């Protein structure tokens, strides 16, 4: 081990992380994997080093502005090679765990391609560790509540299906929503039973000492944490008396939205997009369909993540099967335990999301978005809230009325139009100026075109931009480096436009129909250089950002 490696090993030791070295892996991969796994002290942001490189060419933190007038992309090669050391990482925080400068420095760094897991952008960048822990506890309970309702719905639908088949032999379209209104106490009890069994099972309980162990203080009502045994049963039964009421309220979808007695979650929390929900009783019917598709998609999930998440990849058969049983996974016998486990987690979180955001529910493609997140975050409730944060923007793409996706395609079209009128005219000639051919890229954020690693890379840069805008950095501090590239909500779309523009010659010279462009786009998978893409995207943002914004 070199000096670098020793340094990392020390860090890992201090974080209770077992360092496993295999000769086939490069050091940088290790660094990443272990930062993925580490949480203690780093639990706000999981550091990820996304690309290897020599230290010599790395630029030190704080030298950003000193490159003269030469306009360079924040993702230019030289810079992206610098690796954040643990000390550098820590330097972003005050002793209370607050981000210094409201996170400006950190975000700048991340935008420059120094990767880290930005899932917890959910938190206010100015929060301290303590504040974040309180939120985390609250959010965990909210998530568990959602899961509870999901299980209740399964049971309910199973029952009503049974009844239906018993009563009428062929009631295919009949709505089962009416049954939603009568929930027997028997149902509630059995839901609790299955809940406690789910509580007994928490992903990576035994491995996650360093994550939960440190945060149990202040979490006195803890139903589960470090212990993977069943100690929590009696406790959860106690705390459940109020939940019976709550649960039945949730089931009745009562109109008393202010009725927020026990404070675990209000109706508003449960469905933040209430105003868009048209008819609540329909939820149940749709939920059945969503669940059906979720179960099918979960077992078809990509397995690329396995190499990047050692712990999850080595899950035991028993644990995997147990997790599958809990969520009711089907037809998974041909899968490896780690994929069964992954699929089960996908189901749990996607179902909870469908309930949380019933306007969107579940739409294919969402599992593509969630899979990388759960590969990095081992706690379901954390992953869920990260996903919720992620979906705040992405959800619009999945809307039934397609307003969101059309808007996005329109922006891509505008970018191409302003950048390359020749290409745009060609697209017009082929009636392809609506840019439908990039549909998949928009919907799953390049997940199908890029590798796992590249995807995380790109997403992090995109999220950092969005976080920068949310915290108002774009307007103030960032304006100083505005000539570089202002942070934009739509970096993804610039990157997509970049991928098309990179192929302009071919498109203009060879393609005479929209089909051929679509084929070209589908064939990009595995042939994209994420950094080149970001470089081109950066140029586009620099020259076109204002024009595109004002034209919308």
């Amino acid at each position, binding site marked *: 081990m070199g000096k670098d490696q020793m340094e990392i090993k020390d860090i890992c030791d201090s974080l209770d992380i077992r360092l496993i070295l295999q000769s086939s892996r490069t050091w940088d991969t290790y660094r990443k994997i272990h930062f993925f796994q580490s949480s203690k002290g780093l639990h706000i942001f999981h550091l990820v080093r996304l690309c290897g490189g020599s230290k010599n060419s790395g630029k030190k933190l704080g030298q950003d502005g000193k490159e003269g007038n030469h306009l360079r992309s924040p993702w230019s090669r030289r810079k992206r090679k610098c690796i954040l050391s643990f000390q550098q990482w820590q330097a972003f925080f005050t002793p209370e765990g607050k981000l210094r400068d409201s996170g400006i420095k950190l975000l700048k760094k991340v935008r420059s391609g120094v990767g880290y897991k930005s899932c917890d952008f959910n938190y206010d960048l100015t929060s301290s560790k303590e504040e974040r822990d309180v939120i985390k506890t609250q959010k965990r309970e909210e998530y568990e509540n959602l899961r509870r309702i999901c299980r209740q719905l399964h049971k309910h639908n199973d029952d009503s299906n049974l009844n239906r088949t018993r009563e009428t032999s062929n009631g295919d379209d009949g709505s089962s929503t009416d049954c939603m209104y009568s929930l027997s106490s028997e149902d509630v009890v059995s839901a609790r039973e299955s809940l406690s069994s789910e509580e007994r099972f928490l992903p990576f309980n035994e491995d996650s000492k360093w994550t939960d162990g440190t945060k149990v203080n202040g979490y006195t009502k803890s139903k589960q944490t470090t212990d993977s045994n069943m100690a929590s049963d009696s406790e959860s039964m106690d705390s459940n008396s109020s939940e019976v009421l709550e649960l039945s309220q949730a089931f009745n979808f009562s109109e008393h939205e202010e009725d927020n007695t026990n404070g675990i979650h209000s109706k508003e929390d449960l469905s933040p997009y209430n105003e868009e929900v048209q008819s609540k009783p329909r939820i149940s019917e749709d939920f059945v369909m969503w669940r059906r598709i979720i179960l099918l998609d979960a077992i078809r999930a990509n397995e690329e993540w396995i190499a990047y998440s050692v712990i999850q990849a080595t899950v035991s058969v028993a644990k995997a099967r147990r997790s599958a049983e809990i969520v009711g996974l089907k037809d998974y016998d041909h899968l490896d335990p780690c994929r069964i486990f992954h699929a089960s987690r996908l189901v749990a979180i996607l179902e909870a999301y469908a309930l949380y955001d019933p306007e969107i529910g579940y739409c294919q493609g969402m599992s593509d978005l969630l899979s990388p997140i759960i590969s990095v975050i081992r706690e379901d409730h954390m992953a869920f809230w990260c996903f919720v944060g992620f979906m705040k923007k992405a959800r619009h793409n999945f809307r039934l009325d*397609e307003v969101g996706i059309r808007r996005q395609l329109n922006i891509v079209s505008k970018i191409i139009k302003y950048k390359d009128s020749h290409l745009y005219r060609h697209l017009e000639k082929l009636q392809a100026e609506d840019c439908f051919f990039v*549909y998949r890229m928009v919907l799953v954020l390049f997940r199908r075109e890029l590798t796992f690693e590249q995807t995380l890379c790109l997403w992090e840069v995109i999220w950092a931009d969005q976080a920068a805008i949310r915290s108002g950095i774009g307007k103030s501090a960032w304006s100083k480096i505005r000539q570089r590239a202002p942070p934009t909500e739509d970096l993804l779309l610039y990157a997509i436009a970049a991928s098309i523009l990179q192929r302009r010659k071919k498109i203009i010279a060879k393609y005479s129909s929209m089909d051929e462009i679509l084929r070209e786009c589908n064939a990009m998978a595995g042939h994209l250089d994420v950094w080149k893409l970001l470089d081109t995207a950066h140029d586009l943002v620099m020259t076109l950002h204002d024009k595109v914004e004002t034209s919308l």
Partner: protein
Amino acid sequence: MDEDCDYLFKAVLIGDSAVGKSNLLYRFAKDEFFLDSKPTIGVEFAYRSIKVGDKIIKAQIWDTAGQERFRAITSSYYRGALGALLVYDITRKSTFESLKKWLKELREFGGPEMVVVLVGNKSDLLHSREVNLEDGRSLATLEQVSFMETSAKENLNVEEAFLHMIHRIYETTSQKSLETKTTTSDQSTDLKTLQGNREIIYIDEVSATKQPSSC
């Protein structure tokens, strides 16, 4: 795209999620099968050229996403489609029950002369069959469409289903083009007659199916 073929036919694959649409296409276009092929997002397509009589027909088969959510955006892909394979999964009754909805959509977006073949896929999974062969057959009779049970996995009837559709498209369109020829000297827009190419069946795999995981 129009190299070496006498006709170019466009057809679509439709049906609920995970009934095996993409795998039917893989099997037909590339003779491949992927147990865990990912859900199709948006649309993809593949080509295969076949010989019917002395004509080379290039079939362009569009593979669409199964979830209803994608309908509005994928429905534009019915444009110009002469045939459709309407697929359900014999191990899941719900996919059979959705057929009504799909047929309705076909009538709405597809042309009146669209050739429809009803396909019950996954016929290898006999032990978990939920839809009887008879049910499929009688629905097909009722709706006046052709019917076949297939297994993309075991490569049963896949070729037959596609070829049946293509032959029937050929029959209807060549009749139509004969009719149009009597009035105008031009070809109908959906047909393209080129220099005759005497090569026997050649398979043109396209990029859309090159990535096994892209579907």
